[in-house]
Every structure is written in C-alpha cells, then in structure tokens.
C-alpha cells in the first residue's frame, strides 16, 4: 500500500461504515413505520371525504372505488375529475367529485362536492385555492361557514337561475368586496350537479381504477 492511498482507503471505509450504520438504522425505522404511514395517508383522505359523507352511510372501500372522468368542455377545465363512489352493500349511495373551478380570482379552486344518489348535495369543501387572503378566502371552512350553505341543495333547490351569487340574481351570498371567488365556487358546484344528474348511471357503473390517493 503506497503512502498516499492508505488514509484514503481508510477514510472511505469509515465513511462507508457510517453510511452502513445510518442506513441500517433507517431501514429498520422505515420497516417499523411503513404500515402506519400508509395508514395515515389513507386516513387523511378518508377524513376529508368523511367530512362530507358520514362513515356510517357506506361500507365499501371508498378509497379503492375511484374513477376519473375527463370532460374538459363540460367542466371547462383540463384537469380530470376524480370521483369516489360510496356504496352500501354494493348499492350506490353517493359520489364525491373533486372538481376544479377555473375562474377564481387567482386561478383554480379545487372543490370536493359530495352528491347523494338522489342528486342532493351532501356537502362541499374547498380542497385548495389561491384566492386573496382576507378577501376571497372565506370559501374555506376554516374562515367562514359559507360553504356549508351548499348542503342539501340540489338542482331543484334552487332552480338553475338561483344557482348564482346574489349580485348575479341568485341565491348564494357573496362576500364583502369579493364576488369572484364565491361565484366561481357556485358555478363549479352547479356544474358538478348537472354532470351527476346526466351521468349518474355511468359514474357508478364504470369499473374502479386506482389513482393516486393524494388530493
């Protein structure tokens, strides 16, 4: 062994050894936590869904019963709409649609709309948005209860003229100083209802496809 390479080899071995110990530690911790992490990820999505549909009202694997529909012209947005389907003993109960409103003040607003099989809204939640804090963000449940106002609405309640913010002659409140964001949400929910009404059969009949559970 020449004089120059001796310490090199030694230090690389040492570095290797440290890496070895580190990885061993990591690998074991990973083994220990893997299950729980997957569990947690699922739980989060479920939690979101369950905020709209009570866990007791279905008994299928909600996260496994998913399809994606693509109808850019109808939804006015290229993003595919994810639909979770709730069934009780195999019977269709409700659909959770993740739709995107393209016309927020600062871009897209992603919504979760739960619609039961009769076409009644179970609940709506904003999944993500970029609206101006303090102005457009009361669409979040954390900021105001406004979004709860959708529960139990349907295509008949109100009629299609009523599916607009008050400033446009509809039945939904806008916020002080902000009409755009609520308008976008109302329109998107309305669209989801329309789509559901027109396609509910296919929505439930298409075989499930696994998609990334990450909302």
């Amino acid at each position, binding site marked *: 062994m020449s004089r120059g390479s001796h310490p090199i080899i030694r230090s690389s071995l*040492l*570095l290797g050894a*440290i890496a070895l110990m580190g*990885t061993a530690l*990591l690998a074991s911790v*990973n083994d220990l*936590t893997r299950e729980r992490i997957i569990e*947690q990820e699922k739980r989060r999505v479920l939690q979101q869904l369950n905020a709209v549909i009570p866990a007791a009202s279905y008994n299928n694997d909600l996260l496994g019963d998913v399809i994606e529909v693509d109808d850019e012209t109808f939804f006015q947005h290229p993003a595919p709409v994810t639909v979770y389907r709730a069934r009780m003993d195999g019977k269709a109960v409700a659909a959770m649609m993740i739709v995107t409103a393209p016309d927020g003040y600062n871009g897209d607003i992603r919504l979760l709309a739960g619609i039961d099989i009769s076409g009644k809204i179970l609940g709506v939640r904003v999944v993500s948005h970029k609206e101006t804090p*303090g102005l457009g963000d009361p669409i979040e449940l954390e900021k105001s209860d406004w979004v709860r106002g959708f529960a139990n609405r349907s295509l008949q309640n109100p009629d299609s003229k009523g599916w607009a913010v008050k400033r446009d002659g509809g039945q939904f409140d806008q916020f002080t100083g902000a009409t755009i964001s609520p308008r976008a949400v109302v329109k998107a929910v309305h669209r989801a209802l329309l789509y559901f009404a027109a396609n509910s059969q296919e929505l439930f009949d298409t075989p499930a496809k696994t998609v990334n559970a990450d909302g």
Partner: protein
Amino acid sequence: MANGKLKQILTDGAWRQNTGLVVLLGLCPLLAVTNTVVNGLALGLATMLTLMVSNLSVSLMRGFLRPEIRIPAFVLIIASVVTVIELLMHAFFYDLYRVLGIFIPLIVTNCAIIGRAEAFASRNKPLPSLIDGFATGLGFCITLVLLGTLRELSGRGTLFSGAEMLLGEWGRAITLTMIPEHPGFLLAMLPPGAFFGLALLIATRKAWESRKTGKQQRAASVMVADEGPAR
C-alpha cells in the same frame, strides 16, 4: 464536569450564541414555520433532538474522523437522524408532518447543526456535547417560539392554535384567544412579516444586551457613529 462549565455551555447555546438571533443560522425554518407557536415549537423540538443525537454521535466518533471526511461524515450522521425523525413524524404526528413539510428534511442543512458538530462535538467529550446540543437546540427552539408568538399574536390574536397537532385532541383546549375579535393582520403571517418579526427580535436583543453591558457597548457605538453622518 464543573458546574460553571455546564452553565457556560447552557447560556452560550441558549442565549449568548443563540443560532437564530446572534449567529444567524438556520434562518429558513426560523422564518418559514413560525406563523404559529405550535409549528415553531414542533420544528424546534425536532431540531433539538437532531442536535443532541448528532452531537452525541459525532463526539463518540471524534477519534476516528480524518479532516477530509469529517464534513461528509457529519452530514451522513445528521441526515440519518433527520430521516428517522421524519419517518417518525410521518407516522405519529401526521398533521404536523404535513404542515412543516419540506422543512423537516431540511433540518439537515441547518448550518447550526453542522456548525455545532464541527465546533463543539468534534472536540469535546460525549456528555458536554450532548448538553451543548441540548442548549443550542433550546436556544433555537426559544427563538422559534418567540417569533411564532409574535407573529401568531399580531397576525390572528391567538396563541397555540393547532396545538392538537402536537398534543392530540385535548390540545385543542389550550388554544388561547388572546385578542378576541382580532381583525387579522395578514402581514404578520406572510413572508414580510416573518422578516420584520425576526428583525424586531434581534434588535430588541441587541438593545437589551447593550443596556446590560452599557459602558463597553457605548464606546463601540461611538466608534460606529463616527462612521455615520457628521455629528
């Protein structure tokens, strides 16, 4: 270990050489996660833990490490520790994990940690190193909490909101609404507010320190002022 030295290590790490306020390292997490006290506290604790473990292991290994691989070795050790913490948080503090996001793995690059490994742990015995890690981590944690308090209080008038993420459901109860009907001062929650807040903290600390060491500091200020406008 002498009591005096212990105290010295503690005050140095937690106050005199405070990473966030004096050495100005680890600024990214300090500014990024302190929109609430709880977020700050959580990341502070994670950092403290990392510091202690990494200091301890570096100190234990200090005999073997040749200079050219010292830094890579430290980095490896720290990265392992951090990943373990990340995995654990992912599994057990899921909400916090989501809120802190990328700043958990980024503890690795918190310069303060390598700094302590290099400056202290690689030259000292395990116990003092452990204590030093604790003290430095504590100092960092204190800064995070202070800044978090400042921002949360001025931004939304609450304290400890989101405590349930750290403590479980009962944590909801300790969320304090300090200023009811707070209209919400968004600036404090946004990036500029973070910078302003830290600036105020550091300036306050400086003013306090200079009051404490009045005379010496005044001499310095005369010197600095001499540089300023004619006066």
